[in-house]
C-alpha cells in the first residue's frame, strides 16, 4: 500500500512540487487514488465500464495535469487484443505523455487504466510490465553499460525469477536458467537482425540497430501488448519499411501493438485502428480511412486550408 501523498515519480519531469505551489492551490501531480484502495499486487476486478474480454487495454477518462497544464484531458478508449493500434497527433498533443501513463511512468491525475481484468491505475511501471505491457522509448533508453545480449537478457527479467541466495552462490539451477535466458535472447537478436552485435557494447552500435535493440529488449519479456514510441524516428525509408514488416510479423503472432508515430505512410499502412490526439484530448478514432477523411483531423494537422495530401502519403 502506498502512503498517502507519495511523491510523484518524475520521469521525465518538470513538474513543480513543494509547499508554495500547493498553497497556491495548484495540483501537484500526486496521484488521485480511485475510491477503492489501489492494490499493490494484482487483484482481479471486473471493471464496470470496460466490460471487454481479456487482453483489452481499457482507458477510462484519463487525465494528467502538470501544475495547471492539462497534458492529457479526459481521454477514453479501448484497445482490443491482437490489433495494431496507432496514436497520432501534432507535436505537443500529448502522445508520449499518454504512453507514459499507459506504462505507469506517470500516475494519472484522474481516470482509470484497466488491462484485461487487472486494475493498473496508479501502479508503478514494473507492475504494468508484470501485467504484460512492454514499451520502447522515443529517446533511446538503452543500457549502454551492457552488451546488446545483456540488454535483451535484462528485458527478460520478469521471466527469469532469481533469489538473492541463488544469485550469490551461482547455483546450478541458476546456471541453467541463465543458459536458457541467453539462448532466448540470442533468438530475439536473430529475429531482429542483430546477431552480429550480440557481444558488442551497446555504446558502439549504430542508431538504427539501437532502435531495433530496444524492441528486442521489450519483446524479451513476452508482452501481450507492446507500445512503440516513434519506432521509425530517425530511420531512412528502407529501415522504416523494415519496421513496417516487423510490426506486421508481431501482430501476426497475436501481440497487440500500439504505435505512436509521425510517419504517416507507416501508420496508414499498418494500423487496424487509429486514435488522434490534439492538445491532450481525443480528437477522433477509427480506421485509417475514417481518420484520413475526418475534417477535424485535417484541420488539426494542416489548419483550415484544404490540403489533405499529407494524410494520403
Amino acid at each position: 500500500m502506498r502512503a498517502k501523498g507519495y511523491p510523484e515519480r518524475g520521469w521525465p519531469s518538470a513538474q513543480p512540487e513543494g509547499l508554495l505551489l500547493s498553497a497556491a492551490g495548484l495540483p501537484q501531480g500526486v496521484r488521485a487514488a480511485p475510491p477503492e484502495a489501489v492494490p499493490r499486487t494484482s487483484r482481479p476486478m471486473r471493471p464496470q465500464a470496460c466490460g471487454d474480454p481479456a487482453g483489452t487495454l481499457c482507458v477510462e477518462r484519463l487525465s494528467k495535469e502538470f501544475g495547471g497544464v492539462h497534458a492529457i484531458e479526459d481521454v477514453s478508449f479501448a484497445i482490443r487484443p491482437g490489433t495494431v493500434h496507432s496514436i497520432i497527433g501534432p507535436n505537443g498533443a500529448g502522445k508520449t505523455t499518454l504512453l507514459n501513463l499507459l506504462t505507469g511512468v506517470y500516475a494519472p491525475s484522474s481516470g482509470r487504466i484497466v488491462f484485461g481484468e487487472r486494475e493498473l491505475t496508479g501502479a508503478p511501471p514494473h507492475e504494468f510490465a508484470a501485467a504484460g505491457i512492454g514499451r520502447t522509448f522515443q529517446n533511446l533508453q538503452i543500457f549502454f553499460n551492457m552488451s546488446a545480449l545483456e540488454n535483451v537478457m535484462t528485458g527478460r527479467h520478469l521471466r527469469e525469477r532469481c533469489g538473492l541466495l541463488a544469485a550469490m552462490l551461482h547455483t546450478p539451477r541458476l546456471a541453467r536458467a541463465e543458459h536458457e535466458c541467453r539462448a532466448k535472447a540470442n533468438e530475439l537478436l536473430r529475429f531482429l537482425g542483430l546477431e552480429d552485435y550480440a557481444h558488442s557494447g551497446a555504446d558502439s552500435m549504430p542508431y538504427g540497430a539501437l532502435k531495433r535493440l530496444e524492441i528486442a529488449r521489450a519483446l524479451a519479456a513476452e508482452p501481450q501488448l507492446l507500445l512503440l514510441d516513434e519506432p521509425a524516428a530517425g530511420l531512412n525509408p528502407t529501415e522504416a519499411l523494415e519496421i513496417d514488416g516487423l510490426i506486421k510479423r508481431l501482430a501476426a503472432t497475436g501481440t497487440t501493438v500500439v504505435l505512436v508515430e509521425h510517419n504517416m505512410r507507416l501508420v496508414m499502412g499498418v494500423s487496424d485502428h487509429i486514435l488522434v490526439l490534439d492538445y491532450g484530448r481525443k480528437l477522433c478514432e477509427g480506421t485509417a480511412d475514417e481518420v484520413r477523411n475526418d475534417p477535424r483531423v485535417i484541420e488539426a494537422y494542416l489548419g483550415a486550408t484544404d490540403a489533405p495530401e499529407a494524410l494520403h502519403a
Partner: protein
Amino acid sequence: MDSLARCEPNASSRFDALVARWRAPRTVGFVALALVVALLPLVMVNNYYYDIAILVALNAIVCVGLNLLIGYAGQISLGHAGFFALGAYGSALLASRYGWPPVVALAAATAGVGLVAYIVGRPILRLKGHYLAMATLGFGIIVSIVISTEDGWTGGPDGMPVPPLTLFGFVLQGERTWYWLAGGCLLLAVWIASNLIDSPIGRALRAVHTSEVAAEVAGIDSARHKLLVFVVSAVFAAVAGGLTAYYGGFITPAKASFLHSIELVTMVVFGGMASTLGAVVGAAVLTILPQFLTVLKEYEMVVFGALMMVTMIFFPRGIVPTLGRYLQRRRP
C-alpha cells in the same frame, strides 16, 4: 513470443558456456587474487607486513560490498562506516558483555545490521544524488555520535576491548593465523560479489544505474533492488567490522566516523567503480599509502586530500579501468 523455438540446452553448448565463464575476465581476476593471497606470505618478512595485509583484506571486504552499491547500482553512501562500526560494536558487546561465542556474536551482529539497513534503507533510497549522499551521511554521523555518547555500553570515545575470536575452542590469534582467515574471507566476498554481478539481479542493478525508467518498464522493481544491494553492502561492512574488532582486540568510535566513511568511498572510487577487483586494488593502495605517509606525519592530511582531488579530476573512472583502457590502446 510463441513463434520462437524453445532452445533446450544440450551438453556441448553447456560445456561451451562453462568454458566461456572460466575464460571471463572476472574469473581470471579471481584466480589472480587467490594466487596473490596464497603466495604473498613468501615475500612477507615480518609480522608488520602481515598486519598490513590483514588490514587491506578487511578494508577490501567493505569496499567490494560498497562497490556493488556505488559502482554497479549507481547509488552512494557516505555513512557506511556506520554499518562497519555497528558490526564491530555489536559483535564486541555480544561477545564480551553477554558471553556469546564470538562467531555467533558476529553472525548475530551482522544480521542486526542487515535489519537496520533494511529499515533505514527503504526511506533513504527513495532519495537520489546529493540528497541520498547527505541522508547516508546523516545516518553515519548519528551512529558515530550515539556510539561515542553511550559510554556505559561502548566505553565512549576511548573505545572498548574485544575478546579474541575463538572457533571450536581454538583461539584465533596472531598475524599469520589471521592472514589466512582474512584472506579467505576476502576471496569469499569477491566470489559472492562476482556471482551477484553476473546474475539477473546484477543485470537489474546495472540497468537501474543507467536508466531507471527503462529498468522499471522492463519489469524491474528498482526500489526493491536498490534496497537489496544496500543491505548486502551493509552486511559486508558489518562482517568486516566484526572481524576488525576481533583482530585488533579493541575498537574505538573513530571506526564510525565520517572520515572513515569517506576513506571507504575513496577506496572504491579510486580503484574503479563497477570493478570488484578495482575495489580490492583501491583498498590496498589507500590502506598501504598512509603507512608510507606516516613518515610525513603532518603532511598526511594534505597529501591525502590532494590525492583525492587529483584522482577524481584526472581519473574519474578510477585507476583500474583507466589502466585497463590504457593497456587496451597499447595493444597492437
